[in-house]
């Protein structure tokens, strides 16, 4: 037993040594969420396409999610290795903006697919989507056609949702309810509450439980059925279209102020809103590309619902009131 310690230390040391070997070409470090960086995400294709033109190495660091990577960047401050942060949504941009850690991108987004023109000097969108309740057509014949119908019908479908304290879609639904019901959102939650089977920590638990048949509908994205259609040739799933419109999620990237390679970072952001990057998004990140229109979206996306009108609260009111709204939600849901 006593001989183990030195061996362990030697093993660790050699391990660290391997990691500290540096590449010779410039290295652009992008913090992103893990499903972007992993084998099955857009990461490998984005890396290959960008490296073909930049004479650099693109290092995608997959961290757990947008909140985690922003917190991490804040903690690292000016010591961060990151040149780009890719993968926060507009519910976090106000906070990211006030951190003072980002530099203007200096790019403009021409003819974007977003419902409203994009005007933000720090953050640039790369994809977007809409929250929706997804159901199995074979099990639920007539899904609700509006959020109000879903809330009012006490014999309506059972639901799986996510917790706004821990999950992005969960936060999205809370804001969606707020957008539609305003000050009466808490009453609507009280009406909905008996049909909520469970509130999960993240998207994956709720979606997994839904596929196991634990409830009629799950909070997800309007684009979720496209995954089943394209990757699994499974046509059973659909998103319910709601008359009031669907709450929107816009995912953005920004250039880190402390970056030593602003030019390369700038080049990456320009690449990000080019067709080469955008065409990778629909079938790897399962979201809508921001530019390129029909040319970059697979035809299967035509089968998806039209989520218009897009609902979105402005980033300042979200940043200012999120905490109070979450407390309100907790109060109703804990009864």
């Amino acid at each position, binding site marked *: *037993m*006593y001989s*183990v310690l030195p061996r*362990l230390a030697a093993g*660790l040391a050699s*391990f*660290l040594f391997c*990691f500290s070997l540096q590449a010779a070409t410039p290295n652009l470090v992008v913090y992103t969420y*893990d*499903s972007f*960086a*992993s084998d*099955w*995400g857009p*990461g490998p294709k984005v890396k290959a396409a960008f490296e073909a033109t930049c004479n650099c190495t693109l290092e*995608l*660091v*997959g*961290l*757990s999610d947008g*909140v*985690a990577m922003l*917190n*991490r960047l*804040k*903690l*690292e*401050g000016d*010591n961060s*290795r990151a040149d780009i942060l890719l993968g926060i949504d507009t519910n976090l941009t106000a906070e990211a903006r006030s*951190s003072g850690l980002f530099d203007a991108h200096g790019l403009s987004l021409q003819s974007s697919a977003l419902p409203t023109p994009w005007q933000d000097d720090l953050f640039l969108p790369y994809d977007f989507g809409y929250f929706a309740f997804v159901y199995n057509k074979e099990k639920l014949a007539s899904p609700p056609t509006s959020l109000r119908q879903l809330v009012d019908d006490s014999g309506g479908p*059972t639901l799986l949702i996510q*917790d706004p*304290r*821990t999950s992005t879609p969960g936060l999205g639904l809370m804001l969606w309810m707020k957008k539609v019901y305003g000050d009466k959102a808490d009453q609507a939650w009280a009406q909905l*509450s008996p049909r*909520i*089977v*469970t*509130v*999960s*920590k*993240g998207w*994956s*638990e709720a*979606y*997994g*439980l839904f596929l*196991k*048949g*634990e409830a009629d509908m799950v909070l997800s994205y309007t684009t979720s059925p496209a*995954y089943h259609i394209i*990757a699994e040739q499974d046509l059973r799933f659909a998103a319910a279209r709601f008359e009031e419109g669907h709450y929107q999620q816009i995912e953005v990237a920004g250039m880190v102020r402390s970056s030593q390679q602003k030019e390369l970072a700038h080049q990456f952001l320009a690449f990000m809103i080019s067709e080469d990057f955008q065409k990778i998004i629909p079938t790897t990140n399962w979201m809508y590309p921001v530019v390129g229109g029909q040319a970059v979206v697979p035809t299967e996306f035509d089968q998806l619902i039209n989520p218009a009108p897009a609902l979105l609260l402005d980033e300042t009111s979200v940043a200012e009131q*999120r*905490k109070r709204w979450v*407390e309100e*939600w*907790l109060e109703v*849901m*804990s009864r």
Partner: protein
Amino acid sequence: MIVSRAIPAGLVLALLALLVLAPMAGLLHLSALPGYEPADLRIWESAYLRRVLYFSIWQALLSTLLSVLPAILVARAFAMQPDLPLRRLLLGLFALPLVVPGVVVVMAVVSVYGSDGWLPLGRSLYGINGILLAHVFFNLPLAVRLLLPLWKMIPQHHWQLGEQLGMNAWQRFRFIEWPMLRETLPGVLLLVFMLCLTSFAVVLTLGGGPRSTTIEVAIYQSLRFDFDPARAVMLALLQLGLCMLVAMLTLKFQRMPEVEIATSAPYRSRRTTLSYVVNLVLIMAATLYVGLPLLSLLIDALQGPVIKMATSAQLWQAFANTLFIGISAALLSVVAGWFLLQYSASLARQGRATGARLVDLAGSIVYVIPPLVIATGMFVLLSPHVDVFDWVYPIVIAINALMGLPFVVRCLGPSIRQSHARYHRLCLSLDLQGWNRFRFIDWPLLRRPLGLAIALVAVLAMGDLGVIALFGSTQTATLPLMIYQQLGAYLISQATVTALLLLLLCLAVFALLERGIGGKADVVN
């Protein structure tokens, strides 16, 4: 002698304190900086916190009792049937639930008890029922593994005496087995209580909604959207205080048995048909309970893209990372635990029982500081000075070794104490010290619990998600992190294949370590 034991133990204790307190101090310091939420002491008065506290204690207590009390019966049944066919395999199976990541357990539990499951419970699954089902699945087998070795420590002549006196089963339990249990049971109760108190994904998903919020969830919340480090530290301290309280209560109940010099051997006499049948039913019921969710996982995984995934480089990289982290953390944890326990055993031998208990407690209680708090705090302290990316493995290994310490204390503690009580004088008179004492006295006696401790901590670290999720990136992912990433990207069938691979790896590592270090045959001392 005691001084030479105090030095390494003191070092370990100092290191523990540093690993726990420094990150918390780092987080508190952060909250004093501009741009961060300042510490807000009003949290103590909020109705929300009271509700969270009440629910945390309630679910943890209930889960603990429902796990440990049946575990006593099941462990006893295993102890009474040393020749049971497939006994080793079943006990190996019992080591698995602990390593299954929470989110996979949720899916497995739903496969069995969900509305389309084998034993459907419908909506009533969500709430305290689901939480208890999952927690008992995790902890009953663990408690069985921890309690089982006790029966080996009962001197043979106690059984013989019991027989001569014509004791019935109850009397044997009361007068022969109970005194032995009474020493270890409080520790096992405390450990399971801590595990249930800090359980997270299970509580949040199967709990049915925010009614089922625990302190751990509140801590997580305050380190995410809210990013309020001071609040996270206050809640972590509350959790620590709560566990100290429970520890004091359980320790009051603990009695050190009189250790005597005697030979012990498995109980092999007077086996009636009735007791045989009862034991068999108990073992079968527990095996079914533990096995069904695992079986559902196996069935799901075999329907997944097994062949396609077998060629994924990312998968095998994660496999290697998992193995490396697991083994390193286990060795580190056992070495640290060894020094602590040697010191506490020598204190106990000198009659300083309270001191001994406090040392044991220090080793165990750090478990309840959420890894997220330690990890975030470490991040705060380290990131201005070093590139944390280069330190992913040492940090993850160190925190996992820390989290494994309570298991080392539980597995090894009783045996080390017994070895001290029985052989310390002999060692003194033979002037056996250091390596020789380890080689000739400790190793033959302790290799079995040592094997169990290393095996348990290794699989536990291999199953870790909390620490690796914070520090790991796609490149340094372990299998549990990969499972979580796959589940987050619609790849549910791939995730079940990865989970199966993790389980097989854990089973293999557990068997190899436990048998390789513990030895094949029972050591008769």
